[in-house]
């Protein structure tokens, strides 16, 4: 392997190098630290480097591998965490100024599981403050400053999992853990050309992660490939007594190639009104998928998806942050909108929240039934290119989702993975999402992985690789 390709290797490739002892976890960790400290600073993707603990974890992984102890595909692989996930002894800021130095006493369940899998935690990564939960309309809505998109640093990486997506795209961590309440993994994955998986609700324990909306929040991986998403999900999933929403069903990543080919549903009208380059790459993806399966057009059932999400999130987010809102410290947040936006939730009658949850039940049943008929249902993840890093993006987003497949998946609790579908002439990634029935992660990941193989985009490198030019000073600190 060319040494320049090393930082952009998949988890599978890095694991192979580690097992053949062509590289050590210590060397790999040092490599990524150097990149986190340079490219990561330039992008504003990093909040805290955890060098001391990481080097100890890497040394342990090396000694275990040397002794023949194999903890699985993540053994010795460095990773980053969105800074809403707690690590004992390391600051967990939620991207918010009032909490920038707060240290929580416990490890999140995902952190414990990744440690058990032998992964090496190297950094807390940037997030929009409160994972966007207080409302925001500008990339600057975090105390670390706007996170730049490695494909064009004049554009934003997307939120709210800004750091994880930018870091993976720039090859400064091989994988990262993000969170998604209504699109916060899929959107930044789409804009950075990474693979982002929002797994079935309940697959991954949220214990130790910031709560935004109890019935919507999910943690999930952002990786270089769909296959990597499956490997990481296997390591972090499973029942957890500390999060009663977790499912008992065990997840094992098992790639599938159906005998008769993949059954793909393409959302009717999904490319209508989106950016021409996004539509063109989507149509090309459909053509490629038709060579490995059967593609047919499908329509989403009609529901007031956006209204249900608005009401549920208003009620649950207000309940989650009632004390913080009452403290008046919203005035310290970076987003002006965040100062008062969430207060509206205080005025929502309980019966309207219950009404929304009842309609949600209809949605979940109908949408899951539709998804069950396919290995994956596809659509462009988002119909607009990455927003400018200095611009208010709220105006562009309503038209960027011509079909509510994202919201349908949010409310159904079903899995969706977003992968790159190509690039525009100006070098920005375009994306396609694969949505599946609940618990059908292997189907959607397999279909997405098959398309990745056909597209062959993995060798493409962002401009940040050639020019480590600075856009800001960053706010990186060492734990």
């Amino acid at each position, binding site marked *: 392997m060319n040494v320049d390709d090393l930082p952009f290797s998949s988890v599978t490739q890095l694991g192979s190098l580690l097992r053949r002892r062509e590289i050590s976890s210590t060397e790999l960790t040092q490599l990524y630290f150097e990149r986190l400290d340079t490219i990561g600073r330039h992008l504003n993707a990093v909040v805290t480097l955890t060098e001391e603990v990481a080097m100890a974890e890497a040394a342990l992984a090396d000694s275990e591998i040397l002794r023949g102890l194999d903890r699985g595909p993540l053994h010795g692989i460095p990773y980053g965490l969105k800074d809403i996930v707690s690590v004992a002894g390391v600051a967990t800021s939620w991207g918010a100024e009032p909490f920038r130095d707060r240290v929580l006493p416990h490890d999140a369940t995902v952190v414990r599981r990744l440690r058990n899998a032998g992964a090496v935690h190297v950094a807390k990564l940037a997030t929009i403050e409160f994972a966007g939960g207080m*409302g925001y309309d500008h990339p600057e809505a975090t105390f670390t400053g706007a996170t730049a998109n490695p494909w064009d640093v004049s554009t934003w990486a997307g939120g709210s999992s800004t750091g994880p997506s930018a870091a993976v795209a720039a090859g400064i961590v091989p994988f990262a853990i993000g969170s998604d309440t209504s699109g916060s993994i899929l959107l930044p994955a789409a804009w950075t050309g990474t693979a982002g998986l929002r797994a079935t*609700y*309940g697959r991954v324990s949220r214990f130790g992660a910031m709560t935004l909306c*109890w*019935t*919507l929040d999910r943690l999930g991986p952002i990786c270089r490939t769909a296959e990597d998403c499956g490997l990481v999900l296997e390591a972090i999933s499973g029942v957890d007594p500390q999060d*009663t*929403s977790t499912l008992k069903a065990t997840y094992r990543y098992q790639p599938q190639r159906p005998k008769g080919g993949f059954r793909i549903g393409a959302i009717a009208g999904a490319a209508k009104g989106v950016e021409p380059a996004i539509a063109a790459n989507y149509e090309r993806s459909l053509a490629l998928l038709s060579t490995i399966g059967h593609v047919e057009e499908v329509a989403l059932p009609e*529901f*007031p998806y*956006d*209204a*249900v999400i*608005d*009401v*549920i999130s*208003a009620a649950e987010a207000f309940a989650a942050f009632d004390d913080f809102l*009452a403290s*008046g410290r919203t*005035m310290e947040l970076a987003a*002006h*909108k965040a*100062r*008062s*936006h*969430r*207060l*509206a*939730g*205080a*005025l*929502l*009658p309980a019966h*309207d929240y*219950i*009404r*929304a*949850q*009842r*309609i*949600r*039940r*209809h949605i*979940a049943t109908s949408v899951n039934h539709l998804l069950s008929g396919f290995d994956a249902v596809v659509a462009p993840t988002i119909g607009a290119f990455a927003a400018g890093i200095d611009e208010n993006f709220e105006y562009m987003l309503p038209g960027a989702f011509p079909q509510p497949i994202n919201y349908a998946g949010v409310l*159904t*609790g079903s899995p969706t993975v977003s992968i790159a579908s190509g690039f525009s002439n100006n070098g920005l990634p375009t994306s396609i999402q694969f949505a599946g029935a*609940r618990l059908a992660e292997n189907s959607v990941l397999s279909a997405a992985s098959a398309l990745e193989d056909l597209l062959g985009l993995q060798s493409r490198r962002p401009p940040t690789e050639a020019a480590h030019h600075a856009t800001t000073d960053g706010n990186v600190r060492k734990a």
Partner: protein
Amino acid sequence: MSNTRDTFSNVPLDSTSNSCYPRLTSSVTSQIMMATESIVRERLGEQETWTQGDSGALGVALRQLHDAVEKLHDYELENADEPAFALEFGDTAL
């Protein structure tokens, strides 16, 4: 969807489900916003920090919430023939 008005309080009532309770309708949004702003100012004790922009953002949020609630009520009205279903919150429903 029509609303009747309570003679005594001039608050729009929800006539769509024979409810006698006020709903979060557009006509009460400004009243609610002013009341909320007043409460927030009092709770925070920092009146000087609350700006017109904050009031504006709260007003937008309330209007969005009102629109969302309207949509849910409309959906229920249009699907009145749907069989009733048990209430299960997200954690267990999923």
